[in-house]
């Protein structure tokens, strides 16, 4: 047995044991920290981890940056609220409505995608923002959404001390589900198609990728998961209003989480959410004046984009590789080499600009 294969096996073993440790820590978290104040942080972090991962499955893989995910999030929340009200569903049975939230998310994503995915880059981003504002306006102005006062969810007469725990495990299941899904997608032909579209859509189409179908499938999947977690969020908070369900800061936050962790990676969005959401929550509780949190979010954002533009996971991976090879020229993996080449090329070409008239988007 050569030392190379030993090292490879060790790496695989380390990966699996790390995964087991993370899973065990996540499962035991409410047992070790039963304080509702602490588990509240856990629930929110996992809700955002799910939303950021769902965003990443579409936007991170395909390169189409969507700033309209709150459309699905809010619609999922409202779907559960409206169904519970109109069908008189109370008690634990309301959790049976969660698949409906996912269904509504998917049902909205299809026409939304058919319109928005016809255009690319900036125009796509702006269309998603426009659709987002249409939905917020509808939530404000229709009578069945409860107008500006929003909707309450049915009351759950659970103990306050353990109230958060079921929500924690539901959100954890959602996070595990979307992470597993994005891992599978990344390895599958579907994921390759998405990344081919990100790198060069026209060339991908030339090579036989059915771009519209692939993009729409990813967008719909992302919408369904975001709708689902929106439903969970609504039941947890027991209240949704137009400006909290359809919140522009929600879109910005999940994008920041994905960027911080590493765009297009599997674990990145989760890591980003685990770092940012508790911090944001703490700031909102600590400073009742909303603007401090706002300014800080903006500053952190600028620092992340300027200092770790590629995200923690890719940058950290590079550091570890550099450490383990100790400066020896190990066989460089294909992807980082290509990326390095691209970066130098960008510098030669032009740092300040790339785009439809100049070059790489």
């Amino acid at each position, binding site marked *: 047995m050569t030392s190379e294969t030993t090292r490879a096996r060790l790496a695989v073993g380390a990966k699996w044991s790390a995964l087991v440790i993370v899973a065990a820590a996540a499962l035991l978290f409410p047992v070790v920290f039963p304080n509702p104040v602490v588990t509240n942080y856990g629930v929110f972090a996992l809700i955002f981890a799910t939303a950021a991962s769902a965003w990443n499955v579409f936007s991170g893989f395909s390169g189409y*940056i969507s700033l309209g995910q709150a459309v699905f999030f809010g619609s999922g929340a409202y779907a559960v609220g409206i169904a519970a009200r109109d069908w008189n569903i109370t008690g634990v049975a309301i959790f049976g409505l969660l698949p409906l939230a996912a269904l509504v998310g998917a049902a909205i994503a299809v026409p939304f995608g058919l*319109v928005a995915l*016809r*255009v*690319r*880059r*900036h*125009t796509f*981003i*702006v*269309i998603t*923002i*426009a*659709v987002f*504002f*249409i939905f917020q*306006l*509808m939530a*404000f*102005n229709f009578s069945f959404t409860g107008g500006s006062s929003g909707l309450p969810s049915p009351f759950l007469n659970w103990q306050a001390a353990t109230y958060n725990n079921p929500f924690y495990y539901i959100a954890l299941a959602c996070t595990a589900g979307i992470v597993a899904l994005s891992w599978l997608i990344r390895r599958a032909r579907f994921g390759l198609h998405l990344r081919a579209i990100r790198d*060069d*859509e*026209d060339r991908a189409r030339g090579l036989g990728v059915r771009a519209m179908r692939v993009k729409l499938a990813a967008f719909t999947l992302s919408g369904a998961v975001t709708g689902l977690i929106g439903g969970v969020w609504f039941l947890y908070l027991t209240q949704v209003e137009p400006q909290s369900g359809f919140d*522009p800061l929600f879109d*910005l936050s999940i*994008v*920041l989480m994905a*960027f911080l962790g590493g*765009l297009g990676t599997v674990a990145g969005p989760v890591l980003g959410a685990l770092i940012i959401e508790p911090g944001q929550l703490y700031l909102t509780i600590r400073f009742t*004046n909303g*603007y*401090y949190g*706002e*300014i800080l*979010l*903006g*500053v952190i*954002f*600028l620092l992340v*984009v*300027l200092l770790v*533009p*590629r995200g923690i996971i890719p940058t950290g991976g590079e550091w570890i590789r550099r450490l383990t090879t100790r400066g020896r020229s190990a066989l460089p993996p294909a992807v980082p080499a290509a990326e390095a080449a*691209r*970066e130098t090329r*960008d*510098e030669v*070409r*032009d*740092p*300040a*600009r*790339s*785009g*439809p*008239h*100049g*070059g*790489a*988007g």
Partner: protein
Amino acid sequence: MATQIYQAIVDGILVGGVYALMAVGLTLIFGVLDIINIAQGILVVLGAYLSYSLSARLGIGLFLGLLITVPAMFVLGVAIQVAFIRPLRGRERTSMTLLVTYAVALIVEGVLYRIYGPDDKQLTASYVTNSVHVLGFYLPYIYLLGFGLAVILVVALYLLLYRTRFGRSVRATMQDRTAARLVGIDTSRVAALTFGVGVGVTAVGGMMFGATSGGFNPNSGYDLISRLLAIIILGGLGSIGGALVASVFMLTVVSLVDIWSPTWANAVFYAALVLVLLIRPTGFMGRQAVRAE
């Protein structure tokens, strides 16, 4: 009914002039730097607050105050470009610049909350409240002045772009950045100055917005940026003429729908955007999208 419709069209055209003042900077920045400046909405509001401070605290008139606010906003724009946008590079640049400008918007919004609080402010002057009665239409002085200012500014921008050396390098950079560098144009300098001009023009739009919107607060930026984005997409990204046409068109639509249902006027605005893009994805006067490498 007919007079109501005519009045709505006249209103739409006049308000469209105000929006053109805000949208021109956004589309100019896109054309030269290939970025969408999400902060434009809050920078308009910042311009309005600057005018407010000058007129309410120091007693400097709104139009005279522009001599101070425009250069100040120009410097701010150059600073933002040099500090946060110039360092970005690589494949994700499009989305990164968007996020950076969004972050800048958040910070500016927070600072405005800190200084001015959440209450609505409004710019007041004798010509803001009075109007003139011509051919059966009510024309508020402030809109007439603003429309005139919009025309003057667009002509000035046109002269800057088509009659000066700087304008020639801007247009060259818009057409092909690499070629522009090859003939000796300092494209980073052009980019920084263009960002400054785009934000500086916004100071004028901000003053007009503050005087005509019937009250603004630090939160007004969101509504504004979504409208401005719809306008410049509809006009064709990077096209200044398109931004003018689209401003007038969109605001006339809003003003007409407003007669029947004020609550849905905004939704129709966005619906018009979606509809037009279904038929013509590059907008009214947009260039054909060049294949991204």
